[in-house]
């Protein structure tokens, strides 16, 4: 190859090298995200988001000197995880740090509480690969991870849809509503307010099947 030809080919060679570098970077980024997804979907750990949607005076306070660590979110506070979200004026979560082999330090939620105007939106697995949609509101919501319970007090109301093909939706009111987060079981009690539980179930009425007469 002559010198002139070599000089002429230089821009193409450098362009090729640039493309090769770009392809390598793209490949690495794809690999990185695939790894991250694998970790999340593997169920080894989960991400929980805490944020504020309030415009003024919203803040998240972290009390690291306390044991367990306290996370307090004020002002349109939202706590969001894979199953759903809770929104309220104030959210308090207590968590402990735990060293997990091969995964470094992870947090474990000891308790979570929402106060104020609480709204709940969850999707839960039910039989037959269905997902029940749970929407609720109350003045106070507590999560007890040890017992897998979600406890709603302060004029709690709950609406469940998608439980079965026959039941279109169920509406419930009580002084205290307890939900088992593993089985999805709901318990309606009078609670401190002595409100008598009230549950309305709406049955899906299917139109009668038409038979064609020959």
């Amino acid at each position, binding site marked *: 190859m002559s010198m002139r030809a070599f000089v002429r080919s230089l821009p193409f060679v450098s362009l090729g090298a640039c493309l090769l570098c770009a392809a390598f970077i793209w490949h690495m980024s794809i690999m990185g995200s695939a790894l991250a997804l694998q970790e999340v979907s593997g169920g080894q750990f989960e991400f929980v*988001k805490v944020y504020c949607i309030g415009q003024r005076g919203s803040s*998240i306070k972290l009390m690291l000197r306390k044991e367990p660590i306290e996370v307090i979110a004020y002002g349109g506070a939202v706590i969001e995880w894979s199953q759903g979200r809770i929104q309220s004026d104030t959210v308090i979560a207590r968590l402990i740090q735990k060293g997990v082999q091969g995964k470094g330090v992870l947090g474990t939620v000891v308790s979570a509480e929402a106060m104020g105007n609480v709204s709940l939106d969850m999707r839960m697995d039910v039989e037959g690969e269905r997902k029940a949609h749970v929407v609720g509101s109350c003045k106070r919501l507590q999560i007890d991870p040890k017992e897998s319970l979600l406890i709603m007090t302060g004029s709690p109301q709950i609406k469940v849809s998608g439980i079965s093909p026959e039941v279109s939706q169920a509406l419930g009111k009580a002084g205290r509503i307890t939900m088992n987060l593993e089985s999805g079981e709901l318990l309606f009690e009078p609670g401190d307010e002595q409100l008598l539980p009230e549950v309305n179930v709406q049955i899906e009425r299917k139109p009668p099947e038409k038979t064609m007469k020959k």
Partner: protein
Amino acid sequence: MRLLASLFGFALLISVVAVGFLAKLWWQQEERAQVETAIQSEHNVARRSSLEALMAQVGGLKLRGEKLLGREAASGREFEIGFDELSYSGNVLKLRKPVCSVMDEGAVVASFSGSSVIVSVQKQLLEFIGDVVLKSNKHNAILKSSRMRWRWSDGEVLAIGGVSFALGGMLIGSADSARADTVLGEVELSGRPSLQLRISKWLKY
């Protein structure tokens, strides 16, 4: 022969004159350098003493070697600030590439670093500027921002602009600003605050 001798003599004379002239030049240069050094050291002594007087005035800071030493009034923790360059005018000191280590019983519990820091002696305030990092060894946490103010009288930290927070491998956060204490025992994120927790189990433990 006579001609050669006279030429040699002339050359010798020229050489002596040249050596004399060079010696005079060297002597003058040496003298000037000595005077300049004396002036410089007098100036430095004056600058240093006025600087020390300024720092001791309110803030109770001391300049020892290439480090500024002080004490956090509220907790009694000692701190030292290492730097690359120091300049000052009026009541304000400016340090380039500062690293401020806060110590409790001899162990470093927290450290600040940034591109530069402005020391307001009278306000007992350090204002770190540019990629500021506050690392707490006590709680294994890191607070980063573009500007950070630390008041060494009460240990209050105010981080402004592009705040990010990390606690070990389990929690990351972001906000527009944050308030904290020196060792990050308490951190308040405000202005679009958000946290992401990496938890081992949710609703079970």
